[in-house]
């Protein structure tokens, strides 16, 4: 007993306790739910069987049912459009801004940091603001687009099935751009300056320098940021809740919102768990890509 105690205060035991307690906590509150999710995806779980662990086993019924539901395909397509559209927009705007702020001038780093307010704001608030900006009759975006001559009539961003998904994508691009920019700026700052000096002496112009030095040197950063973008867009929930609520008629519904909707609005926890299991596999895949692209840095 005494040896155990002295090991905890002054030996290996100290490390084991420090790392063991949080991992036990994480395994209990994240690992167990993951396993429980898989179990529930093979069960029929509704309000009545919520309290018991032994529930009717239905095999792959939940999976088969979901695949044959008419809305499944359009929701999966929406998810892909949402992810690809958001990541592309965030990355391109973020990269352009990072390149601009890469030029050294007084105040550059402070102003660049200011962009990050979009990222620290609660998602619900961002959603509320964009909901109002995107409003059909009185929204300021429609007004600005008409003033600049880009648009003739009002677009009903939130209630027109052709635009509802893009309304959320637009808000999500705004939300994520700053984070992309900050990380890309860190990557840019790490490129050794003498590479550019050497290229300049060899007569390479700015365009050539970008394609032959900047992009190749940024490859692992870009890989990591795309993977992070995938992880973050698949986590996005608040904007859907605040802007379109997945509607109208599922036109802006995506898998992660649908999973919640199935569980907490339709009380079909089995199906909600099934979608969650499928999406978790995708997220973990993205995380593995992220680890691979930052692996040389993982060990510090």
């Amino acid at each position, binding site marked *: 007993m005494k040896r155990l105690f002295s090991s905890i*205060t002054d030996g290996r035991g100290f490390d084991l306790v420090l790392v063991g307690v949080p*991992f036990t906590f994480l395994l209990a509150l994240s*690992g167990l739910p993951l396993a*429980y999710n898989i179990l529930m995806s093979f069960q029929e779980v509704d309000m009545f069987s919520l309290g018991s662990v032994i529930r009717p086993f239905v095999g792959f019924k939940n999976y088969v049912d979901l695949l044959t539901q008419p809305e499944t395909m359009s929701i999966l397509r929406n998810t892909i459009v949402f992810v690809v559209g958001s990541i592309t927009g965030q990355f391109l705007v973020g990269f352009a801004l990072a390149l601009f702020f890469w030029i050294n001038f007084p105040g550059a780093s402070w102003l660049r940091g200011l962009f990050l307010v979009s990222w620290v704001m609660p998602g*619900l608030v961002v959603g509320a603001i964009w909901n109002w900006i995107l409003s059909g009759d009185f929204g*300021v975006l429609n007004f600005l687009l008409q003033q600049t001559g880009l648009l003739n009539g009002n677009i009903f961003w939130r209630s027109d099935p052709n635009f509802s998904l893009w309304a959320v994508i637009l808000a999500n691009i705004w939300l994520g751009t700053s984070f992309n920019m900050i990380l890309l700026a860190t990557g840019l700052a790490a490129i050794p300056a003498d590479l550019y000096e050497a290229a300049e002496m060899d007569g390479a112009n700015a365009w050539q320098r970008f394609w032959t030095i900047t992009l190749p040197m940024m490859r692992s950063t870009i890989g990591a940021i795309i993977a992070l973008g995938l992880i973050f867009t698949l986590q996005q929930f608040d904007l859907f809740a605040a802007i379109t609520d997945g509607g109208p008629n599922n036109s802006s519904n995506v898998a*992660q919102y649908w999973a919640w909707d199935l569980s907490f609005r339709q009380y079909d926890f089995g199906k909600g768990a099934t979608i969650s299991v499928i999406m978790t596999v995708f997220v973990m895949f993205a995380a593995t890509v992220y680890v691979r692209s*930052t692996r040389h840095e993982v060990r510090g």
Partner: protein
Amino acid sequence: MSENARNRLLLALSIVMAAIYLFPLYWMYVTALKSGSEMFATPPSFWPSAAQWSTFAYVWESRNMGRYLWNSTVIAFGAVALIAILGTGCAYVLARYRNIWVDVGLFLILMFQVLPASLMITPIFVGFSQLGLLEYPRLAVILAITAKSMPFFVVLVRATFMAVPMELEEAALVDGNSRIGAFFNIVLPLARNGILVSAILIFMQAFGEFVYSKSMIQDIQFQPASVGLNSFMGPNTSEWNNIMAYATMYVTPILAIFVLLQRRIVSGLTSGALK
């Protein structure tokens, strides 16, 4: 062009870009100050003709915002405290050693970090309801947020510990400190700033958390401000000045903290997120 003129031009250009980017935020503040009729004017006014400061008091009273913000604060403080207690030691050990087990631990941490809350809520809700934890809804949300956000905290704080020279701790051990003594007297004080910044980041996230609170807190007495905002925004609402006033009161404290600590937050974020 002289160096000075170039700098001024670039500064002006970047201010314009920041202004465009931050326009949604500006629009929130302006709308909150408009009257009910001015808000729907066409063309919209970009500066309120008569600022309606009374809207804030009205919304604060009628929506009972004090209670919502109090719940948000309780949840955020609870989650941050639990995360800091559990996560700091974990980050320290993962920074101190380099072996295969540390790599496995880091990989697990990352996997726990990326799990989306909207997917985890189904099993967490069912599990918690079976354990009876939903009787204490705010505690249930604190536990769920802790599981979700602790990995991020560990990643950020680990980067801080990596910057603390091992030699200092070794010297303390040679001087007769125990491991616990060296950790609390030498290592923790040196990493204090990094831990504090990471805790503030986590606090801001937890203060705006929505999925878990929306799903697990049915009783309006215990709901945080994010859920309150969500129920304020009905499908066909037209009270946008009131909603924006709500959003303003909710978000301004967070923005103030951010602007004050901007440099530290940004550098803390970049040192951790890519490593």
